[in-house]
């Protein structure tokens, strides 16, 4: 397949390795990967703040560059939800509605692409370690992603997956929420980190880099030993 990667700005700037791992995994599976330079943002920050006109300024560009893609794959459940679930709402009743609908149907979050679209769960990966998985809310509740990442992790050799009690509880990032309501955001993150630590896992893994950015930020500040990783990093390990 021709896979078009959507790399959001924070992955591009702070977590480029996540994108690199995705490229390697997809190419190993025999697909042609492209990444349009001009696409940097899905428009979710403005959208979530209620500024839908301004969100469309960004989304127009993204929609334009991705409209004919065979498959758009995204490393983040929240950006994935924006394209898949919210673009059709953002463009409802507008001339771009059909294009947004088509894009929605051709967009997948990364783990969902592997498991649901490609039917692949074993990537030949090996990652010795105790791991717990955090379900990013957008991926979980907007895109229905729950079993996919676990099926993938199951096939990783030497990896021990321990579920935490609060796997499905929001980590507290929530986009601009993290900056507008930092004390609530932090409190939620603390609850999450404590739940992860209770499992005895060495790594907290997620399919959403924005969650990980927030959680790692808390863990580093508090000097906690728990480390965070994106799912793609584990799946590309040998």
């Amino acid at each position, binding site marked *: 397949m021709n896979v078009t990667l959507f790399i959001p700005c924070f992955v591009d700037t702070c977590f480029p390795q996540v994108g690199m791992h995705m490229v390697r995994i997809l190419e190993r599976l025999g697909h042609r990967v492209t990444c349009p330079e001009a696409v940097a943002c899905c428009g979710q920050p403005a959208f979530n703040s209620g500024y839908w006109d301004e969100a469309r300024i960004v989304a127009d560009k993204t929609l334009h560059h991705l409209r004919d893609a065979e498959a758009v794959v995204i490393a983040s459940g929240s950006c994935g939800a924006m394209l898949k679930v919210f673009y059709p709402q953002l463009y409802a009743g507008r001339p771009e509605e059909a294009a947004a609908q088509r894009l929605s149907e051709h967009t997948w979050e990364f783990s969902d692409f592997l498991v*649901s679209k490609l039917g692949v769960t074993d990537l030949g990966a090996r990652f010795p370690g105790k791991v717990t998985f955090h379900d990013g809310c957008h991926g*979980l*509740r*907007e*895109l*229905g*992603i*729950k*079993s*996919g990442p676990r099926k993938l992790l199951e096939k990783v050799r030497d990896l021990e997956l321990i579920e935490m009690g609060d796997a499905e509880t929001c980590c507290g990032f929530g986009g601009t929420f993290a900056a507008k309501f930092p004390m609530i955001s932090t409190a939620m993150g603390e609850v999450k980190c404590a739940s992860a630590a209770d499992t005895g896992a060495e790594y907290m893994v997620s399919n959403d880099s924005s969650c990980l950015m927030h959680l790692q930020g808390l863990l580093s500040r508090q000097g906690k030993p728990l480390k965070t990783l994106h799912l793609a990093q584990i799946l590309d390990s040998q």
Partner: protein
Amino acid sequence: MNAQERILARIREALKVSAPKPGSHGHGGHGRDVAPAPVFAFQGRPVQVARSWLPPGGSTPQEHLTRFAAASAELKTDFRCVESEAEAHAQLRQIADAEGWARVASHHSPLTDAATTALARPTLFTDGGYVPDDLEVCDVGITTCDVLVAQTGSLVVNSRTSGGRALSVLPPHHVVLARKDQLLGDLTDAFQRIEQLHGTHWPSMISLVTGPSRTGDIERILVLGAHGPKKLTVLMW
């Protein structure tokens, strides 16, 4: 325009634009708690369909009894299923002695008249009216019921044929005298039976009672007898 007309006018105006039907906002994606496609049969939906999603109540009288007994145990309802009215009276006397009932409250009906006679204690009958302070000093309220529900461990009393509104809830112990054939499977059955019994002449109050009075308002810890009866006993034969 009076207030009623004003509000109704606002409602009609608002409803000129239709709202999307439930299930059509399609949240939850694939794989998670996927709801069936909207059924959209409103009233007149067959009872069987409704049962298919509610907690089960059992399908035979024996199953009903088992289910009711299990529910009662969980609720801390003292459920005693005996062979005869005489045995029920014997049990009632036992409880009266154990708890030291000085005054009993009840209402007139074939079952309660026989039971209160068998108890032979000073009895306040609420029929035709009573003084609340007199009811307050009674140790027990003995009533019949309309129907019992296996699915939930409930029973139904009403303000006309169960001795009024307060008899079954003011005294600290509520005893219910019931016949086996009053025990039905589930709430759907119960509401149908209630409509059969009262549909032409509704009592002002009908109460579905499920266990003794309870509260969890203090640290979510269960305490029985918050305001209503601390004890609920069902004698069935």
